[in-house]
């Protein structure tokens, strides 16, 4: 059994928040997290981890851990900001987990936030996001996130016969779940034809194969196992973590563009620490920044064989009633992707599932849940396993 428990979670709606700042969003997420637990006030926290990918460019604001502490009213023995592109959220959770597990702090607030729509145009937002990409060898030539994942899609389709329809099925399923999630960025159901007919972004990926740019914040409260019952009758325990970073940051350096090699290693580590196997996972939130990513992830996590992800989705195995329901919160594709917040939101969705609080239409009777979050071209990976 684990030493670290989640006792509270909160999130803002994800979307375009033209009437709120980054600190407004963080305040709202933290307020909801505190209110989801019992007997917690802001003064009780002695640890604070902030996950935010790019406030320096998006808000022209550095020193973000100090900056946010002002608005959150937090004083802490241990405080840090973590950043690793899109995996920032899970890096924050793992940092908070280590702070609690080491005994450094008793009650740790982990907050993820990104506010993107302060920039005037979508091409400016894309330019800001391109800051995560290697400047000299990729970004200087116009590279952006869809480019790299499209490279995986082209290669996976060429080697394994994965079809554009398989990718579309991922988007349709996740939108169906998002239609039951009032906090999702997009909630209106879509069809396979909608995805196939949407405009090209980076071929073969189309608009509805891509997650949106979102504003939003999410928060998680971590504590030691022995203290958990002070704050809730139904804590959720972190059963195992696995992280892996591989030195293949430039797209041309990736040894195999048909798989997430780093995820296979991170997953193996997480399963070993949690003493479970892939078949024991009842519900999973994975990093579907693009439809192809979810297919590569269910393969690397061992839910299906390599190359068979498309077929697995087509057979309904990742839907309710299938072998492993995936992205019951709507995924990044529909829930949205405020970069630093995503991994923390994923944990919140598993927290809700394991406490039996997920609404009808996306509820899974689950004892073990998993989140998977990635940064870069899938070369920085984090897996967290949770239990009731």
């Amino acid at each position, binding site marked *: 059994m684990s030493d670290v428990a989640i006792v509270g979670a909160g999130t803002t709606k994800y979307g375009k928040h033209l009437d709120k700042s980054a600190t407004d969003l963080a305040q709202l997420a933290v307020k909801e997290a505190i209110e989801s637990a019992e007997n917690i006030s802001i003064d009780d926290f002695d640890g604070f981890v902030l996950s935010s990918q790019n406030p320096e460019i998006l808000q022209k604001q550095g020193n973000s851990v100090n900056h946010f502490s002002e608005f959150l009213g937090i004083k802490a023995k241990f405080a840090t900001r973590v950043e690793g592109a899109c995996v920032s959220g899970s890096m924050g959770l793992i940092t908070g987990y280590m702070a609690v597990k080491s005994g450094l702090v008793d009650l740790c607030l982990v907050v993820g936030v990104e506010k993107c729509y302060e920039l005037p145009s979508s091409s400016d937002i*894309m330019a*800001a996001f391109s800051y995560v990409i290697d400047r000299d060898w990729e970004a200087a030539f116009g590279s952006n996130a869809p480019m790299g994942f499209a490279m995986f899609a082209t290669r996976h389709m060429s080697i394994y016969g994965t079809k554009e329809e398989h990718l579309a099925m991922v988007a349709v399923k996740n939108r169906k779940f998002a239609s039951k999630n009032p906090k999702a960025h997009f909630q209106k159901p879509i069809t396979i034809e909608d995805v196939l007919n949407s405009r090209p972004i980076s071929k073969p990926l189309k608009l509805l194969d891509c997650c949106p740019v979102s504003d939003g914040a999410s928060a998680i409260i971590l504590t030691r196992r022995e203290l958990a019952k002070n704050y809730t009758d139904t804590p959720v325990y972190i059963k195992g973590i696995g992280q892996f970073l591989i030195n293949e940051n430039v797209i041309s350096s990736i040894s195999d563009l048909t798989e997430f090699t780093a995820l296979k290693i991170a997953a193996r580590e997480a399963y070993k620490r949690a003493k479970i196997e892939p078949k024991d996972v009842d519900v999973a939130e994975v990093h579907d920044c693009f439809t192809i990513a979810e297919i590569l992830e269910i393969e690397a996590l061992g839910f299906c064989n390599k190359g068979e992800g498309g077929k697995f989705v087509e057979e309904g195995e990742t839907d309710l009633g299938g072998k492993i329901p995936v992205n019951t919160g709507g995924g990044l594709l529909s829930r949205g992707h405020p970069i630093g917040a995503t991994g923390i939101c994923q944990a919140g969705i598993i927290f809700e599932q394991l406490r039996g609080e997920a609404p009808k239409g996306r509820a899974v009777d689950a004892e073990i849940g998993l989140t998977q979050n990635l940064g870069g071209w899938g070369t920085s990976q984090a897996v967290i396993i949770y239990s009731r």
Partner: protein
Amino acid sequence: MKIMEVPPRYPNFEQTAIKKFWDSLKEGKLLTTKCSECGKTEFPPKIVCTSCYSDKMEWIELPKRGRIYSFTEMHVVPTGFKPPLTVAVVELENGVRLFSYVVNARFEDLKVGDVVEIDFQEMNWYDYKKHPYFVFRKV
């Protein structure tokens, strides 16, 4: 005055210890580094080997032909670029992989395994910085 909301980016071809790579592009040569101790060839070029950590690196010229390993065509690009842009990861005859534009083909004209040749083109970043770079041409 036009304010750039997001500072533009162009390669660092000036303050770098691999300046020889950039200078050679001006002569139509594509170089990278090979470790004299363990023999590892890698791209991007480096001044210390990432395998054995030797600093005894030599410059080698890369083959001028390769095959498409994967590719895409970008239709949405950051400020400062004009879509569509066809780009590919190409595996050269010696196994080194490179990323750049495919200048004479669209997505529909390409498949994995197609043979390409290296060519050179002047790049222009925001009418502010210029430098030649390597590109791919489908044979």
